[in-house]
C-alpha cells in the first residue's frame, strides 16, 4: 500500500476511535450530571 494512503488510513482510524471514546465519556454523564 502506498505510504500516503497507509498514513491517512491509520490516522483516520485513530481519530475515529478517540472521537468515539470522547463521545461515550461525554454521554456517560448525561443522566447523572449535577
Amino acid at each position, binding site marked *: 500500500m502506498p505510504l500516503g494512503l497507509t*498514513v491517512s488510513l491509520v490516522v483516520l482510524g485513530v481519530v475515529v476511535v478517540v472521537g468515539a471514546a470522547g463521545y461515550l465519556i461525554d454521554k456517560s454523564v448525561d443522566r447523572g450530571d449535577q
Partner: protein
Amino acid sequence: MDLAHVHLLLNHFPAIGGLIAFGLLLLGTVGNSDDLKRASLAVWLGISLLTIATYVSGNGAEEAVCKAAAAEDPCPERDVSKALIQEHESAALVAFAFMEITGALAWLGLWQLRRVRRIPGWNLTAVVLLSVTTLVLMAKASGAGGDIRHPEIRSASEKAAASPAAASEVPFARGVGSFVMRHTWIWPTCETLHFIGLCLLFGIAAVVDFRVLGMMKGAPFAALHRLLPWGVLGFGVNLVTGMLFFVADPGQYTHNVPFQWKIVLVLLAALNLLYFTIFDTPWLLESGDDAPVTAKLVAASALFLVVGVMFCGRMLPFLGDSF
C-alpha cells in the same frame, strides 16, 4: 546530578507509590469512603506521571552502568549484563503501559466523582484490576532492575538470562523500537497524531484557562469542565505516539536538554490539570463569577506550561541535537 541519579531517585516511586495507592483504594472500597477513593485515584494519577520520567531516565542510567562502544556490544564492566538491562527495559515498558492506563482511568474516576458525585462501578472495578496487574508487572520490572547491579541476588534463571547466549534474543522493547524504525509509515503517522493530540489538548486547556482568567464569564466552569476528557484524550494520544518515538530511538532524546525540560513541563502541566478536576474553587464558578486570584494563577501557569511543552518539543532539533 545526572540521569542515573534521577533514575535511581525515581525508580522506587512506581512500585511503592502503587502499593500505597492500592491500599488506599482497598480501604476506600471496604469502608465505602469517597474521600479515600479520591485520595487513591489522585495518588495513582501522580505515580503514573512520575513513571513517565522514571522510564525516560532509564536509558541515561544504562549508559552510566554499561559503557559499551556500540549499542549491540556487550557491557565491558564485570557483573553488568546487557541482556539483563534489556530484560529490565522490556519489563519496564510493559509495566509502564499498564501504569499509564491505570492513571488515565484514575483521572476519569476523579472527573466522574466531581461531575456525577460517584465513581461508576465499571471504572472502580477496572482501576482495581489494573492496579493489581500494574503492581505485579512493576514488581517484575523492579526486580529485573535490581539484578543489573546485584549479581548476589540473581536466581538461577536470571543468571542464565545474563549469559551472552541469551543476549542474542531480541528483547521486547528493542523489538518495538526496531518495528517503528523498519516501517516507514509509523513515524509520519505518529507525528500527525502527535499534532492532532496537541491541538486537542491545547484547545481545551486554552478555553478552560481563559474562562478562569476572566474571559467568557457567561459560561459557568461546570460547562467547560465537561470538555476536560477531550483534552486528556489528546494527552493520551501524545503519550502513546511520543513513547513510540522514544522507544524507537532513545539515544536522540536522552541527553537532549529541551527533551528533559519537556518532560518536567509535561509533569507539571498534568498536575495542574488535577486542580481543575478535583478542587472546589474553580468548580464553584457560576455564570458571571470572577475567579479568585489563586485560580487565575493556576490557569495562567497552565497556559505557560502547555506552551512551554510545545516550545521544547519543537526545539528538539534546534536547541537540542535530535534528528
